[in-house]
């Protein structure tokens, strides 16, 4: 809440500036941090943040044995995604995390997370494209 949303430009969407801003892990499950526009993913006992603007799609799926799966696909170069994304040109040799897939014991939690990510992503993308339009 330091007015950073107006001072930030779209090419430096940062989830957290400080390590201690990352919220404490909640049961080592996927979390959405609305305020910092971040998705936190449990990898090997740590919560790893990704800014929602790096997400391309998110989907879930259930199987017959009460298991639930969530798939998060991230933006990578060479696929059509939001035109204001500056990474494709800037980081040509960088390796991208493209996709993560999780199995969950809690289908309700997964459907909530999918909805939260979709809504947050839509809001951030529309805000960023408005800003890009204003700037041009």
């Amino acid at each position, binding site marked *: 809440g330091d007015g950073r949303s107006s001072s930030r430009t779209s090419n430096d969407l940062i989830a957290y500036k400080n390590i201690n801003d990352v919220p*404490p892990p909640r049961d080592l499950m996927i979390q959405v941090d609305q305020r910092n526009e971040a998705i936190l993913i449990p*990898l*090997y006992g740590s919560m790893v943040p990704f800014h929602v603007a*790096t997400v391309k799609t998110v989907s879930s799926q259930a199987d017959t044995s009460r298991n639930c799966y969530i798939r998060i696909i991230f933006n990578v170069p060479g696929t059509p995604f939001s035109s204001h994304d500056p990474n494709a040109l800037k980081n040509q040799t960088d390796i991208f995390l*493209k996709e*993560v*897939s999780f199995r969950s014991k809690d289908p309700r939690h997964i459907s909530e997370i999918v909805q939260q990510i979709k809504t947050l992503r839509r809001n951030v993308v529309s805000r960023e494209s408005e800003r890009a339009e204003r700037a041009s």
Partner: protein
Amino acid sequence: MADGHSFNNISLGGRGGTNPGQLKVHSGGVLWKKQGGGKAVELDKSDISGLTWMKVPRSNQLAVRTKDGLKYKFTGFRDQDVISLTNFFQNTCGLTTEEKQLSVSGKNWGEVDLNGNMLSFNVGQKQAFEISLADVSQTQLQGKTDVILEFHVDDTTGANEKDSLMEISFHIPTNNTQFVGDENRP
């Protein structure tokens, strides 16, 4: 104990999440015991090939790398523990500790570093996350640029995380020369 330091509430991180326990650091090495018994990790100082501190949210993490390529990550140290343990490792065990930084910027692009069994994803010299290749059951190449890693499904090791990683994939641009022609690449 007279010889060394003992810490409660130190969790060992791994594939299935974290387990709380007690860590003892003594002149002969490192011993971690799971709370309530069960799993223990005993590392002799002659087996240790590296020690790394990393600041993590609200805590500090000690990574112990062994000569056979394994890595154990202990979390729950206060800032003052880091100072006293760094001195103890140096003066009593003759082991030097390094420091590593954690990336929390939320970017999904960076570099991949392979060290022993560990694959580390780094964003701007800082580590975003690490996965153990020992847990990978299958790797697939998709097209020319994508590498998919599939993980073992293990319900037996007392996993305490609610959401478990099944699959992760990386996009490696064709002009990245780091892994060209390496058949052993995961």
